[in-house]
Every structure is written in structure tokens, then in C-alpha cells.
């Protein structure tokens, strides 16, 4: 069985449009759309065109290297990989739970990472679309445009981002390639000087985070017809929650709700994730499709990330964010909010929660003193699950008696959202592309739907000179009609001789 619009009933004779790669998302993705002669959408797919072999990169390495090495899988959320690997290796060593001081230091690092990642996404990657409109001049839809039109917003975004980076630096030891979390605990306390430096600005950051929620909320209120319908579809939602149902981004049990909001999976141990979910390979993309075994591939897929987390928990354990969560839930009028653009609103609620957590942790004297390491009886296997900025991140390892990793399985956040991103693109294609001529603004609608998930399609590879946008048009007989490349400087270059990438 195929999902609606995943595979055209009669692909021969359809016109193909490819957006390759999707700009302003991480890594290399491509959207292909097959249109018939009347410009009706017949097939839409989000392809991931690179596969990096993350697991092979890790296997064969000594376990103690892994929390450091995995940071190189992703230049965008290295801390999430660092902590998920450390949590898994705690289990491998039997060093679970870690000491209260170690857990609090890890939490501080993690919430700093979530906050700065979310701030970057909202203020700098998505705000140009949200503030100027989806069909606005492409030259305005960037951070320079935002700075000029809304200098206060842009500056707050930069400063929130910087604050989060400093939280990471003081807990991980360095701005990048941090070594703070080690199997069994942490390797350093927070210094008094670093704590005081962060505390000085913490209240200001909480206030700005609150402002960010207000902006996101106002965007929905100003145009509810657009924000409620754009890229909207019903789905299950999955995340970790604390044992008592509270939002917890660092640790917890697995919970899932169905599209009506009913909890159908709860309290499941992170160590048993393989009993709950499996991944399906489809031949047209390198990214797998996870789903819950109990429901099967057709109805067992789910969304992860801020939209799922804010609605999956029973409450947020910090007062300002909890008040915002209640307002968010009320927006759904008794039903879960399924709108793709609501990811932005939920993301800002998590920024506020993260800042409240950071501020409260900084006041905790246990971060300055106390045992850092735990020991135990080695088990040789371990799973570490964490709620990374983009959603649930799973690290699973087996380690041999020689200390070398013999098996590694990673399910990254964006992979969980694979089916959902495809559904979002199809929803937008149905709404905005059927029967219309293709324009840059319309193609940008597709990208906006994908960007709402803040996907990290590949990780950290970059080099000067790569083309950020590649659009291919093919006629009904399969001949190449047009091929336009957009350079990093924004210049459009027509090149019929250039390769056109994957088949649709």
C-alpha cells in the first residue's frame, strides 16, 4: 500500500518539478512533484539524497570515545548526540542513575542546547517567512530583511542564541567538541564565575523568551485561517515524558497519543524502544520511515518534536511555560493542534521552558559541588534517548569485552518525522499547487512546510561553492524542459546541461 500522493497511479506522461536541495534546512533534501498536463499534482515526495552511514562511523571505536565522536555527526545539535551517547554508555557500564550533580549539569547543558537551537530556527530561519509572508520578495525573506524591519527581534534572537552557546561552553568545557558528559557522569562542575556570568543575564533571557512566545502566538491570531490549515494533517504524536506526565526533555518514559489526543502508549521504558517501533525502507529515499509496531506502517507513524511534546505532556513543570501551554491547548478547542505552522508556537513555548529551567538550575548549589561519577556492574548494552530540539533521538549500543563498540543503532529526530514531513508537503501541494502555474513563491510554500519541522537532513557537511537550489522541469514525454540553478549569491543560472539528480 502507498500513502495518498506518494506514488502516482500512472506516472508515465507526467511533468516533473524538482526542488533540490531544499534551501534553509540542514543537509541535502529534494522535493519532486509530478504534474499532469493540467498542472494537477499526481505525486509528491521528499527525498533525502545522501546517506552518511553514521553507525559504521561509530562501530569499532572504544566506548569512552563515543560521546565525543558522535558530536561530529551533526554540527547543528552536537550536544544532543553527546548526551544521548553518554546516557547509553551509562547503561553499558551499569552506571545508572548518574549522581544528582551529574544529572543537573547534563540537564543544564541540554536545555541550553534546545534553547539556542530553537532560537536560531525561529528568529533566523523561519521568521523571514513568518514576518513577511510566504509570497514576499525572496530578497526580504532572510535575516537581513528581519534585522532591517524588526531590529529588536533580530537582536534578541542573536543574544538568546549566544546565551545558549555560553551555557554549552561552561558545561561541556568548550564551545564545540565538548567533553563534559562522560560514561557514568560528568567530568567537571560548574564554576562560580561561570554561574555568575550566566545568572547576570538569565532573567533578561527569560523575558525575551516570553516575548518570543508572544510573537508566535500573535502570528496565529492574526491569520488563523492560514496558520490552522497550512500543511495541516492529523497524526499520532510521540515523545518522552517524565513518569508523572510532565514535560521532560532530558529523560523519561515513552508516551504516544493518537490523532484525537487519546493516550494509547504510556510509561514504556526507553530501553525497550525496539519492542515498540521499527523502521521501513522505501526505495525512493535514503531516510527510513519509523512507525509503531502495534499499529503497523499505515497508521503507526507519528510526529515528534515541539508540537508533539507540548501536547503529549500533562503539564510543563515551570510556571510561565505552563501558562503558555494551556493557552496553546485551548487553541485546539478540545482537539489536538495538528497545524504544521503550530510547530513554531510550540517551539517558542519550549524556549521559554528551557530558559526557566536554566535559570532555576543556575541557582542550584549542587552544580558547584557534589559527586560527579557513578560506577556499577557492566552490562555491555545500553540505550540513551533524549528529546533533542527536533524530537526524540535514540542511541543504542553494544560494547564488547575489549571496550570496542560492536553494534550501534541511531534513530535521529528528523527520521521520526519523515512520514510527517512528506504528509506536510503533500498537504501544501494539494492546497497551493493544483492547477496553478509554478512560481518561486509557490515553491517556497513547500519549503516552509518542511522548515517548520526544522529538519536536519544531513549533518554538517559544507564547503564553499555548493549550489543551494536546483529546480528541474520535465515534460510529459520525459524530456528536460528547463533547469535553473540558484547560486549562493542568489543569482539564477539556466543550465540545461547540468545533471538533474535523482529520478522522481
Amino acid at each position: 500500500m502507498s500513502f495518498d500522493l506518494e506514488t502516482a497511479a500512472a506516472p508515465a506522461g507526467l511533468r516533473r518539478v524538482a526542488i533540490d536541495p531544499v534551501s534553509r534546512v540542514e543537509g541535502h533534501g529534494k522535493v519532486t512533484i509530478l504534474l499532469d498536463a493540467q498542472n494537477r499534482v499526481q505525486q509528491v515526495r521528499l527525498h533525502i539524497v545522501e546517506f552518511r552511514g553514521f553507525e559504521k562511523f561509530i562501530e569499532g571505536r572504544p566506548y569512552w570515545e563515543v560521546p565525543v565522536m558522535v558530536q561530529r555527526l551533526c554540527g547543528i545539535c552536537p550536544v544532543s548526540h553527546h548526551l544521548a551517547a553518554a546516557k547509553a554508555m551509562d547503561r553499558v557500564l551499569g552506571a545508572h542513575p548518574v549522581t544528582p550533580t551529574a544529572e543537573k549539569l547534563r540537564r543544564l547543558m541540554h536545555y541550553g542546547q534546545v534553547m539556542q537551537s530553537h532560537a536560531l530556527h525561529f528568529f533566523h530561519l523561519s521568521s523571514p517567512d513568518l514576518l513577511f509572508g510566504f509570497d514576499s520578495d525572496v530578497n526580504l525573506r532572510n535575516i537581513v530583511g528581519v534585522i532591517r524591519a524588526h531590529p529588536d527581534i533580530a537582536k534578541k534572537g542573536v543574544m538568546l542564541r549566544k546565551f545558549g552557546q555560553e551555557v554549552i561552553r561552561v558545561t561541556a568545557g568548550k564551545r564545540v567538541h565538548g567533553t563534559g558528559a562522560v560514561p557514568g557522569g560528568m567530568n567537571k562542575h560548574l564554576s562560580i564565575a561561570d554561574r555568575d556570568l550566566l545568572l547576570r543575564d538569565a532573567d533578561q533571557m527569560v523575558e525575551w523568551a516570553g516575548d518570543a512566545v508572544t510573537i508566535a502566538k500573535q502570528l496565529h491570531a492574526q491569520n488563523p485561517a492560514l496558520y490552522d490549515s497550512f500543511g495541516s494533517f492529523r497524526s499520532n504524536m510521540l515523545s518522552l515524558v517524565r513518569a508523572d506526565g510532565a514535560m521532560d526533555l532530558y529523560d523519561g518514559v515513552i508516551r504516544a497519543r493518537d490523532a484525537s489526543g487519546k493516550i494509547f502508549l504510556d510509561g514504556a521504558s526507553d530501553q525497550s524502544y525496539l519492542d515498540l517501533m521499527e523502521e521501513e525502507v522505501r526505495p525512493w529515499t535514503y531516510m527510513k520511515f519509523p512507525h509503531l509496531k502495534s499499529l503497523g506502517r499505515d497508521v503507526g507513524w507519528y510526529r515528534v518534536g515541539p508540537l508533539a511534546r507540548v501536547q503529549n505532556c500533562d503539564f510543563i513543570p515551570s510556571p510561565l511555560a505552563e501558562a503558555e501551554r494551556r493557552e496553546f491547548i485551548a487553541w485546539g478547542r478540545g482537539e489536538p493542534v495538528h497545524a504544521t505552522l503550530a510547530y513554531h508556537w510550540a517551539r517558542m513555548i519550549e524556549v521559554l521552558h528551557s530558559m526557566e529551567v536554566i535559570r532555576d538550575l543556575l541557582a542550584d548549589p549542587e552544580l558547584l559541588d557534589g559527586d560527579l561519577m557513578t560506577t556499577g556492574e557492566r552490562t555491555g548494552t545500553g540505550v540513551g534517548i533524549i528529546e533533542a530540539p527536533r524530537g526524540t533521538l535514540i542511541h543504542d549500543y553494544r560494547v564488547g569485552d575489549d571496550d570496542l563498540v560492536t553494534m550501534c543503532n541511531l534513530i535521529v529526530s528528523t527520521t521520526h518525522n519523515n512520514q510527517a514531513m512528506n504528509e506536510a508537503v503533500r498537504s501544501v501541494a494539494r492546497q497551493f499547487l493544483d492547477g496553478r502555474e509554478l512560481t518561486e513563491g509557490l515553491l517556497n510554500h513547500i519549503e516552509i512546510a518542511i522548515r517548520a519541522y526544522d529538519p536536519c537532513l544531513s549533518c554538517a557537511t559544507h564547503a564553499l561553492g555548493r549550489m543551494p537550489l536546483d529546480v528541474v522541469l520535465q515534460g510529459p514525454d520525459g524530456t528536460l524542459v528547463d533547469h535553473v540553478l540558484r547560486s549562493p549569491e542568489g543569482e539564477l543560472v539556466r543550465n540545461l546541461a547540468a545533471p538533474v539528480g535523482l529520478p522522481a
Partner: protein
Amino acid sequence: MTAPVLVFGWGNRSRGDDALGPLFVEQLRDALGGDDRVEFFDDYQLQVEHALDLVGRERVLFVDASLTAAAPFEATTLHPSRDATFTTHAMSPGSVMHVFRDLHHAEPPPCTLLAIRGERFELGEAPTPAALEHLALAVAWGREWLATGARHEHVEAAAHA
């Protein structure tokens, strides 16, 4: 006290020649043997907050691997620019300078881009021998750049081959 000179390389040490930026920073720092006038940073990618790292500098050297630069490297004077990288996770140095200008309502310090030619960027691969040869020449150029000041205001490439 902010060091007047910043050397900022970026890239991923575990992705083949993408390591050239961080390796340049590491090797030039080691070669210099400690100098309070120069600060060295490396990161995976350039981002908006890096505009704040330009504050108080007299000059800045950005260093990255490049698929398109002439071998062994090109040194180019940078200018603030608004290009398609502004809203990506991987900004160009010119776009970082533009963010500085808009945030501070002032011109950023003089910035130079050193683009070292690389070929392969796969996860888990070591830098290629050719890239390491380019790196050695680039580090020698970097020492001269630090010693002589910003006099390289034109594209330099073939002269260093």
C-alpha cells in the same frame, strides 16, 4: 581584553577535507606558540552569533575548505554581503559581516577569507594527501599574514602553487 586579531576556521574534523579549517586553526596556533594578540576559534559552521565574535577586532581571518578555490588556496578580501546563506545553518562569512553591520550600525573589521582547496568530504574519511599539502602552504601563508598585516587585498592563488 579582546585580542585584536581573530583567526576563525570552520568545518568538521571527521568529514575528510572539511577538516581543513579547524586543522588550519590548530596548526597555526601551535606554530605561533601563544600570542595574546591573536585569538583562535573553530566551529562546525558559521552562524549569526559569530557576528559577536567580530566585536573589538582589528582584523579577522576566516578559513574554510573549498571545492571551487584554485589549489592550493585563495585569499580574498571579504565584504558584507546578503547572499542566500543568510537564513541557513551555514552562513557565509560575508553574511556574518552583514549581520554585524546591522546589529551594531557600524562597519565590521577588515576580514579576509582563506579558502583552502579540498576534494572529498565524506564522514569518517581522513583529509586527502593533496588537501594536507594545500594546508601546509596555507599555514605558511597564515604566519606571513599574521606577521605582515592585511596587505593581501587581492585574490591570491596561483602565486602560492
